[in-house]
């Protein structure tokens, strides 16, 4: 069942109030700074943290996250260092690994996804997001995730309808990643109508809906949560802060402070949206007919 997630920590993150789910590429721009940055997200109120494990051909990413993955690879990030990172980083929020299928498939001595998932579970990873793995090809990974207690998160696009939506929703657990608009990742100013339509389509499925792609400010977070999202996923806007830090040669502490500050803004925005939604629901309920 879709709603019976494997990870209690992920279920908890959506239990009361909206979940703020930030993303950073692990190892960007280097191992130690990256650790400080992920810890800053946690201090800023992260409910779940998505950690990007860099792949050389990230076809679903826009230029911002591509840049981060290249920096991380150049600084020597590998799957094994990624797992060491997950073990060492000092955070409260549950960790979800976002990467491409070839890295999962190749890991370890036997081919197939099982060794990767086993290692991820040992490192304390609670879930996986694999943007290039369609539901049709996902059964071996789904089985491995069930064996080791990880959630498998799928992305649903504005164009995902009908049978495809059912196929995905029958395999998802933890939360569903609602892609707010077409295209690759990247911070945008607008919040798309496509988001509202996607959330409407997903209403009947009993699994938390986290909206991502293009969220960069507290007021976007507020509007999206007010519109019915259970959580917000933010990547590019945070990665931009890291990239700027590299360009402007800022100290690790300063970049971490900026990440923490934006995190607070996003989290507070999401909470305002949640309060507004609760209020609207109450006034609808009490409105005389």
């Amino acid at each position, binding site marked *: 069942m879709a709603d019976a997630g494997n990870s209690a920590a992920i279920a908890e993150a959506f239990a009361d109030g909206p979940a703020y789910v930030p993303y950073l590429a692990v190892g960007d721009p280097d191992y130690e700074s990256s650790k400080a940055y992920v810890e800053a997200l946690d201090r800023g109120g992260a409910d779940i943290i998505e950690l990007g494990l860099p*792949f*050389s*051909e*990230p*076809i*679903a*990413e*826009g230029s911002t996250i*591509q840049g981060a993955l*290249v920096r991380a*690879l150049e600084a020597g990030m*590998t*799957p094994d260092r990624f797992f060491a990172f997950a073990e060492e980083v000092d955070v409260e929020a549950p960790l979800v690994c976002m990467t*491409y*299928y*070839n*890295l999962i*498939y*190749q*890991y370890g001595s036997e*081919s197939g996804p099982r060794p990767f998932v086993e290692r991820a579970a040992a490192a304390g990873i609670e879930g996986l997001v694999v*943007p*290039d*793995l*369609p539901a*049709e*090809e996902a059964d071996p990974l789904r089985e491995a995730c069930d064996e080791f207690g990880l959630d498998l998160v*799928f*992305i*649903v*696009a*504005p*164009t*995902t309808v009908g049978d*495809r939506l059912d196929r*995905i929703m029958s395999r998802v657990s933890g939360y569903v990643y609602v*892609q707010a608009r*077409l*295209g*690759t990742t990247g911070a945008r100013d607008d919040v798309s109508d496509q988001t509202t339509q996607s959330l409407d389509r997903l209403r009947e499925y009993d699994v938390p809906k986290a909206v991502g792609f293009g969220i960069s400010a507290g007021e976007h977070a507020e509007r999206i949560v007010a519109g019915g999202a259970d959580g917000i996923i933010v990547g590019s806007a945070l990665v931009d802060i890291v990239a700027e830090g590299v360009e402007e040669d800022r100290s690790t502490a300063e970049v971490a402070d900026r990440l923490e500050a934006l995190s607070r803004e996003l989290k507070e925005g999401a909470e305002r949206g949640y309060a507004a939604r609760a209020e609207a629901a109450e006034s609808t309920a009490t409105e005389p007919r």
Partner: protein
Amino acid sequence: MSETDTPTTDETERRRRPGRERGRDDGKFGRYGGQYVPEALMPAIEELTDAYERYVLGNEDGFIEEFRERLADFGGRPTPLQRADRLSERYDTEVFLKREDLLHGGAHKLNNALGQVLLAKYMGKERIIAETGAGQHGTATAMAAAHLDMPCTIYMGERDINRQRPNVFRMKLNGSEVKPVTAGRGTLKEAISETMRDWAATVEDTHYVIGSIVGPHPFPVMVRDFQAVISEEARAQSIEKAGGLPTDVVACAGGGSNTMGAFADFVDDESVALHAVEAGGSTLEVDEEAGVAPNSASLYTGDEGVLHGARTKLLQDSDGQIMESHSISSGLDYAGVGPELAYLVDEGRVNPVAVDDDAALEGFHRLSRTEGIIPALETAHALGFLEEHHEDLGERVVVNVSGRGDKDLDAAIEETDKRDIDEAPDMSMFTGGI
């Protein structure tokens, strides 16, 4: 089928040839193939699969007739199967050249580009995007888009743009926009990734004309079907001109579109040996630390993995990161290969071989000097194989001349200067380009 059977020309029969059934149903070639793409692309891929089945397989609205007519009138098909007299003498075997270099644009690429742009038109799409490595697929797509009046954007690695400036100019002459890709080493694999990103944002009105038998289903089967005209003609021509089927078919392999095009209708002829010649580059050794394989021999040396939407054989490190490939010929410079070729190699039906930069360049000079045909550096690998392995081949060999070498002259001058090649022209007293 015996050697004397005349191949059928009937359209329905032709499309039913069993050699072309593989992969059509579910996009799988044994363990290879599939649809490993971001969810946002799935509807586009489903729509394309539907269009492929209706128009290409079902010939709805007379698609196939229009495609054939345009291939003949605009493209110049059929291309000849020519006996190479000097090579036949040199190797003491009958050598025939399938002259895809004579197709409009100077390479086999138009077969696929014209088919896909026409299909996009039948589907009601309004814009064409494509990636290109050597620039041959980009120029073919730009020509087809101009011919069919469709706006077109071509993504090309920055490094390839520098290697292939005349082709960039040709695309622009045909009215296409050329967008440089700066990620990674700026070659074909980065250009494919970038084009997929564009497509993810524009699927509703845009068709992605992929340049080889790679990518998610239905691209590998569809591109094969468009390119299969090469082997369809070559098979009939061999029977008619040479009195029977060839003993061997030789084609160079990068992504594998000319390869699969040259092999498709021979796969079921068990007597015909099929040789896929990959770029051996400078060496088959890899530098795992630097993530570089100084070759493009994914069939010969690669391992199973997932890249650009398909499970296939890849050049990758032990973590699964994709290696930077290398070849003297930018058209072969790709870390993956079509899933159908990966399957046919595993089945033992296709013989994968690697020919290094030196042998390819010698093949380039040999064909130019002795037969009056300047081949593409890609094709030159197939000619290098002939020189090295002619003693292992049968009495009637067909070599697919996938393209002409005019685009490669700058690179050929530079690479020739570095080497000591018999009877090669010496250009060192001249400076600058040509």
